[in-house]
């Protein structure tokens, strides 16, 4: 052992006893393991941070006390050395001093080693604390990440459930639409078929009616022709009668003339009477003829009206024939649609007739229902499995966490064991060394005798204090153990509570899912209710037949028929009145006919004369007016009445300029209800004329300007040429 300190000074013998007495605690404390240390379990060596701190503090106290003892020993040694210097030889004293120095140095080194170990322990403890902090932080971070992941997965699951619910809703709505479409198709088909049959019947009826009406009209026309021929024959007969009467009259006159020669005076009156009678008879016959003519005229008028009606009926029949053609066309199109539907039906497997379609739809609906039920069951299974998976994952995570904790604990324990073993080995080495030192010290100190007894007493005291401290350490360790057990129990309780929490959270989630599903079902059902959907297995929809619209239509038709009836009744009354009037006229014609005829004839004569006078005056005036217009405006105007194809009468004016170079240079205008329009012809379609027409008439809307411009141009042309 190399000495690093100078040898201490020699101490006097007077101070030996004082030193021996005053150093009860100056000696080193030896930590000895109990003899059965290796057999005991290593749990009692495990201690918490506080125990270690307590041990450290006690160790430090022991160290300080050991230092004190060492100082005391040093002082004692110095005193001893002094005494030895006084009592014995120098070399033996030097050797003893050397030994004591070496022991002291060794003790100092052991102190330093113990301090170093303490520092190492502290550093290790600090490291462990930091590691545990870091581990806790990492665990918290991992927990937070797991929670975020859980939330994301829960959101994804909710979204998936919502999308599944919406897709189910869509499927249900599509099914409903399909059902409705199929029902509407069936109804349309039925209605179309009924309409087809009805149209066919109606067309047949209308055809037969039209044919019958045509036959009637034809027969009436033939009858009318026959009647007119009969009337003509009657007219001829009457004419013959008239001629005969005239002939007879002339013969009678002749006879009268011959008779007048014989009896001139007395027969004048009789002749006159006869003449008058004959005239009367003639007038009567004329009256009868007139009556007959009137009747025939009225009959012809009636026949004409009837013909007109028949013609109109024929036109209506022709129009309805055209409509029939349209109906036939519609029928064809409907038949084509029917054939297309039948072809579609052929494409549908398992359907051979329209009656099979509802059954097919029902079977498809059943299949859809079964598939949706299976889907629902599969979804329920899936959800159960997902829940079980979640539980298993949670269990796995908890087990992994426990395993990690246990691993950590085991690693910690192993590290502590290693540490403690190293401590033990070091401490045993120290003990052995100290023991050897002690023995050497004892052997060297045997000579001194009395002073060593005090040292031994000090040692024993130190050992007893060590033993006490060991007892304290053991008590602390036992309390530590108890604390550990309490902590373990609390951890287990915390674990159980955590598991309960997880179970409750899972139950809450499942309940929330069920509530969402029920809410979606309720919303679906309410939507279906509001939409009007129903199950045809349990429900049917009825409505009243005699709706107000049908009643209104019937009323309208009844009113129309009533108005037509009233019109026909009025017509009949008018006809009857006319017939009565003709009858009355026939009765009074005998008395007033002659006077009226004379008056009418006179009036006719005067009117004819007046008309001729008016015509001549009008013609003169018109010719003067036309000549003046021609001279003043430069155009000869010719006015004509025309009728358009649609039957509207229009007045046409043809203008020819007085400066026209040929007869083809004519402008035509049409007058209708205050509006004049130019008519295109060969002359007006010439480029220069049409340009003027475009500018003056179409753009500026002024015919006078156009005609004036044309007049000036034609005048210039005429004069220049």
């Amino acid at each position, binding site marked *: 052992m190399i000495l690093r300190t100078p040898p201490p000074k020699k101490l006097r013998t007077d101070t030996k006893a004082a030193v021996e007495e005053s150093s009860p605690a100056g000696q080193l404390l030896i930590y000895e393991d109990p003899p059965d240390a290796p057999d005991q379990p290593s749990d009692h060596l495990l201690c918490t941070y506080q125990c270690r701190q307590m041990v450290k503090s006690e160790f430090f106290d022991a160290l300080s006390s050991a230092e004190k003892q060492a100082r005391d020993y040093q002082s004692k040694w110095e005193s001893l050395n002094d005494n030895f210097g006084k009592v014995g030889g120098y070399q033996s004293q030097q050797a003893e001093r050397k030994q004591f120095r070496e022991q002291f140095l060794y003790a100092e080194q052991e102190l330093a080693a113990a301090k170093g170990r303490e520092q190492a322990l502290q550093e290790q403890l600090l490291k462990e604390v930091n590691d545990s902090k870091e581990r806790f932080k990492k665990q918290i971070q991992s927990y937070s990440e797991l929670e975020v992941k859980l939330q994301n997965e829960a959101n994804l699951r909710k979204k998936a459930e919502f999308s599944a619910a919406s897709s189910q809703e869509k499927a249900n709505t599509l099914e409903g639409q399909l059902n409705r479409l199929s029902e509407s198709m069936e109804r349309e088909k039925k209605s179309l078929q009924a309409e087809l049959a009805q149209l066919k019947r109606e067309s047949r009826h209308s055809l037969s009616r039209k044919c019958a009406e045509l036959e009637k009209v034809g027969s009436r026309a033939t009858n009318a022709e026959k009647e007119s021929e009969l009337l003509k024959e009657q007219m001829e007969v009457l004419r013959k009668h008239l001629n005969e009467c005239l002939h007879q009259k002339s013969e009678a006159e002749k006879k009268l003339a011959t008779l007048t020669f014989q009896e001139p005076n007395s027969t004048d009156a009789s002749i006159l009477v006869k003449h008058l009678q004959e005239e009367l008879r003639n007038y009567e016959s004329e009256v009868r003829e007139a009556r007959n003519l009137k009747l025939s005229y009225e009959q012809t008028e009636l026949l004409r009206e009837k013909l007109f009606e028949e013609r109109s009926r024929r036109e209506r029949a022709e129009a309805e024939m055209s409509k029939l053609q349209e109906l036939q066309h519609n029928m064809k199109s409907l038949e084509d649609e029917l054939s297309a539907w039948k072809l579609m039906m052929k494409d549908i497997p398992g359907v051979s007739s329209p009656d099979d379609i509802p059954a097919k739809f029902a079977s498809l609906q059943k299949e859809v229902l079964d598939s949706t039920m299976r889907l629902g069951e599969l979804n329920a299974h899936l959800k159960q499995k997902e829940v079980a998976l979640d539980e298993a994952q949670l269990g796995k995570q908890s087990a992994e966490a426990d395993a990690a904790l246990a691993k950590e604990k085991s690693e910690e324990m192993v590290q502590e064991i290693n540490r403690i073993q190293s401590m033990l080995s070091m401490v045993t080495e120290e003990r052995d060394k100290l023991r050897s030192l002690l023995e050497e010290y004892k052997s060297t100190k045997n000579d001194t005798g009395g002073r060593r007894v005090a040292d031994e007493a000090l040692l024993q005291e130190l050992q007893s204090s060590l033993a006490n401290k060991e007892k304290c350490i053991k008590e602390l360790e036992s309390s530590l153990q108890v604390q550990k057990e309490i902590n373990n129990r609390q951890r287990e309780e915390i674990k159980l509570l955590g598991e309960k929490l997880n179970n409750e959270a899972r139950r809450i989630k499942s309940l929330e899912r069920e509530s969402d599903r029920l809410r979606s079902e309720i919303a679906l059902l309410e939507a279906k209710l509001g939409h009007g959907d129903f199950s045809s297995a349990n*429900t049917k929809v009825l409505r009243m037949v005699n709706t107000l619209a049908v009643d*209104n239509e019937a009323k309208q038709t009844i009113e129309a028929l009533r108005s037509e009836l009233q019109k026909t009744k009025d017509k009949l009354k008018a006809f009857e009145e006319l017939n009565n009037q003709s009858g009355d006229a026939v009765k009074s014609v005998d008395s007033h006919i002659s006077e009226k005829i004379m008056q009418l004839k006179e009036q006719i004569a005067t009117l004819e004369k007046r008309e001729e006078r008016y015509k001549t005056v009008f013609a003169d005036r018109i010719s003067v007016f036309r000549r003046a217009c021609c001279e003043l405006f430069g155009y000869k105007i010719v006015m004509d009445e025309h009728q358009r194809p649609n039957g509207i009468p229009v007045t046409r004016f043809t203008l020819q300029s007085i400066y026209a170079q040929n007869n083809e240079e004519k402008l035509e205008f049409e007058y209708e209800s205050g509006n004049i329009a130019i008519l295109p012809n060969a002359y007006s379609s010439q480029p220069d004329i049409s340009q003027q027409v475009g500018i003056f008439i179409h753009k500026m809307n002024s015919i006078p300007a156009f005609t004036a411009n044309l007049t000036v141009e034609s005048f210039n042309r005429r004069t220049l040429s």
Partner: protein
Amino acid sequence: MASKTVAKDIITLRGSAAIVSEFFGYAANSILYNRGVYSEESFVKVKKYGLPMLLTQDEDVKKFIANLNSQLSEWLEAGKLQRIVLVIMSKSSGEVLERWNFSIETDGEVVEKGVSKEKSDKEIMREIQAIMRQIASSITYLPCLDEKCVFDVLAYTDTDVAVPFTWIESDPKLIANPQMVKLHSFDTKIHRVDTLVSYKNDEWDEQ
């Protein structure tokens, strides 16, 4: 303060059927007036359910509703009526514009055994009054019916009901993508009537 005891009246199946069919008659008249299906001049005010109610004077409509109510009462007493729907359609195109849906839940025990229930008439009248007020205020959110409209009534019955000769089976006259508004309901303890109106989306609202 002394506690008020509500006097309850005994309600039989026939009485409940009469209440429901009468309610439908007045509700139909109110709807026809508020939606302008018939001109205002053809309606007259009467007092009913504590409110001034409007009844049509058009003989055809009156007769139609009277015949309808008698049949509805018969079905209600048999417990076969599930729903009554008043449909408003365009006269020119026949398109369904509104559906006033009256869903009916019948107590099966009363129909089978003929027992009677107890409920205050005032309470029932109060509930019906709330529905009538809601029908009157529905013009604030229902789209305007600018064109001439006609109405029809559909009855959703059980499949085993014998169809009278004045009635025929019909399609449900649905509206595609309707807007729906749920109104109040009333309960006679034998029949529970829920009211809901579904209408075609207005083009202005869609824009």
